[in-house]
């Protein structure tokens, strides 16, 4: 019996050690990049041992990064060239022109706009597939289902030509529109919306709801958790897109991945600046992750469980 308890204790110790080791290996790069971003380049290169205590150079590194001509990570105030004092509308218009967005703002704006647009499109299409009958419903659904197996991020060549024709290269639209009708999103919404009881919709019809009200007053509110999970999937999809933005965006419209790639591939590589950029692009999403853990997890599972 004592033997048994001792073995159990050893087993538990091993298990914990393994988990803790994993946690450390996961966290160390993150902490290290943060510390490195607070050191000057000479401190970073000269030190023979990695430092565990943050230095005080974060903001000067950031300043140096911001001063670069070709890449803007954070936005900055531009020049007041066309300021006309004609009331609040003009003020807002000029304010937008005064602010030159950097890669982080671009990425956030694009990812949020894409997520919202795609949520609307996918939920509407999913609602149609789940709750209405119409001709060619099955073929259309199967066409969308079939593209689930395609790596849709890789269709960049025709998209590039198409965007050139539509004069949309170097626009936000070029990376928002192509995957807005996200096949996985449509599929997931359709699967989930099938669980809405028909009686619920009929009941609302008898209460006087129009078909569109059924969608946004009944279907959407009952789908809140599915929508949140899908939002995470869509946001991360757009947030991580690299290949197509690399092809289609030019200086000034860069998203984070493209901007960092510019820093890494530059003639002279400034480690301190790269680390600031990496810290700035990783930390906000980590915070988001900590707050929205449940949605992240259900997003991962929703994307993996093909019902």
């Amino acid at each position: 019996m004592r033997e048994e308890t001792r073995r159990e204790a050893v087993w538990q110790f091993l298990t914990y050690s393994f988990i803790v080791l994993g946690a450390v290996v996961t966290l160390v790069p993150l902490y290290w990049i943060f510390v490195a971003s607070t050191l000057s380049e000479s401190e970073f290169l000269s030190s023979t041992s990695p430092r565990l205590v943050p230095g005080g150079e974060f903001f000067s590194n950031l300043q140096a990064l911001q001063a670069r001509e070709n890449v803007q990570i954070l936005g900055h105030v531009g020049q007041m060239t066309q300021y006309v004092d004609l009331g609040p509308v003009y003020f807002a218009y000029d304010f937008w022109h005064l602010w030159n967005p950097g890669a982080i703002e671009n990425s956030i704006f694009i990812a949020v706009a894409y997520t919202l647009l795609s949520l609307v499109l996918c939920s509407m299409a999913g609602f149609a597939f789940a709750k209405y009958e119409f001709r060619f419903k099955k073929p259309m659904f199967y066409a969308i289902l079939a593209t689930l197996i395609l790596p849709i991020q890789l269709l960049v060549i025709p998209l590039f030509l198409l965007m050139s024709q539509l004069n949309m290269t170097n626009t936000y639209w070029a990376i928002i529109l192509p995957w807005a009708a996200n096949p996985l999103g449509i599929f997931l919404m359709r699967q989930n919306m099938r669980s809405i009881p028909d009686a619920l919709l009929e009941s609302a019809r008898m209460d006087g709801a129009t078909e569109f009200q059924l969608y946004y007053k009944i279907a959407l509110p009952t789908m809140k958790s599915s929508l949140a999970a899908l939002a995470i999937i869509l946001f991360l999809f757009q947030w991580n897109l690299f290949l197509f933005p690399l092809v289609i965006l030019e200086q000034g419209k860069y998203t984070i991945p493209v901007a960092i790639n510019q820093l890494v591939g530059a003639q002279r590589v400034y480690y301190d600046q790269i680390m600031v950029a990496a810290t700035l692009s990783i930390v906000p999403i980590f915070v988001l992750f900590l707050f929205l853990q449940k949605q992240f997890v259900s997003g991962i599972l929703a994307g993996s469980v093909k019902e």
Partner: protein
Amino acid sequence: MANIELDTLRKEFGTGGQTVVAVENVDLDIHDGEFLVLVGPSGCGKTTTLRCIAGLEDVTSGTITFGSRDVTDLRARDRDVAMVFQNYALYPHMDVRDNLGFGLKLSTKLTTDEIHRRVEDAAAMLGIEELLGDKPKELSGGQQQRVALGRAIVREPEVFLMDEPLSNLDAKLRAEMRTELQELQHELGVTTVYVTHDQTEAMAMGDRIAVMNDGVLQQVGAPETVYRSPTNEFVANFIGSPSINLFTAEVEGSTLVGPRDFAYDLEDTAPVAGYDRVRVGIRPEDMQMVSEGGTTATVTVAEHMGNENFLYLELDGHEMTARIDSAIRPQAGETVQFTFDEDALYLFDPDTGDALKTKTDDVDTDVATMATE
């Protein structure tokens, strides 16, 4: 308030070139303020009929009129009807107050204050004032049921439609709600169509009941009338619990000859004139146990209910049920003899099932007919 008139209502469902007739040319007049129960076995078209009245299904042909309004082509939301669904269909993301007020908000010009007042009145009527802030999933089945009713009441519609609203409740609550629902309906006086597959519920609740089978309306009448004078064998068999005993008998002169030693001399042979065979029906409560001179049957099971006994009998492969006084208690395996009064006998055409003779015993039929008025 209005009466509802269904004129040769027909509903077909097309599935891949194959059409199924769910409702076949139903003519039905539902009086103003009446509680009408549509009853029948599952798949008989009763729910489809209800959904046509609601405007949730397009009709294939025929017309539906509320009062003087032809509503056949109107959308559900323009018909001024309210419906209670089997699973209540409460909006899960809204609290009870919003559930009750949703219809008023969408389809009336009442101000928000007036809506509040109506919602609170309806809640008071049903005793659910304390639940107004709760979400449906926090409510018990009975409470959800009341909210579903409240949602219909608050609209003050011309017509109430109810699709098996009590079938998800346990037996005790169901009996309670049955009475409550009837009282409520009489108080409000709103024309109500109530669908159920449970004939007991139909008998207990309906001012009149309409029996359907295979999409065809079989009979409409007061519960008593339908029970005593069914128009055909299906209705006789469907209405009444335990079911009527039915078997085929040969007509030999004035005698009906059936299984085992069944032989019954008719005093009045007019109903069987021209028939070689007829279907014989005897209600279980009309079976009388006699010591001799009756038909011999073997008792297979005897159930002692306390106030009465059910005997399950066997006659050469035919099963019969008798509902008898609790003082008579034969054991399983014994043979007994039974008979019945000719007044209580039902006779049906063996081919069409049409009734040839129904109960003519001494219940005051005037009372039964008065109830239908």
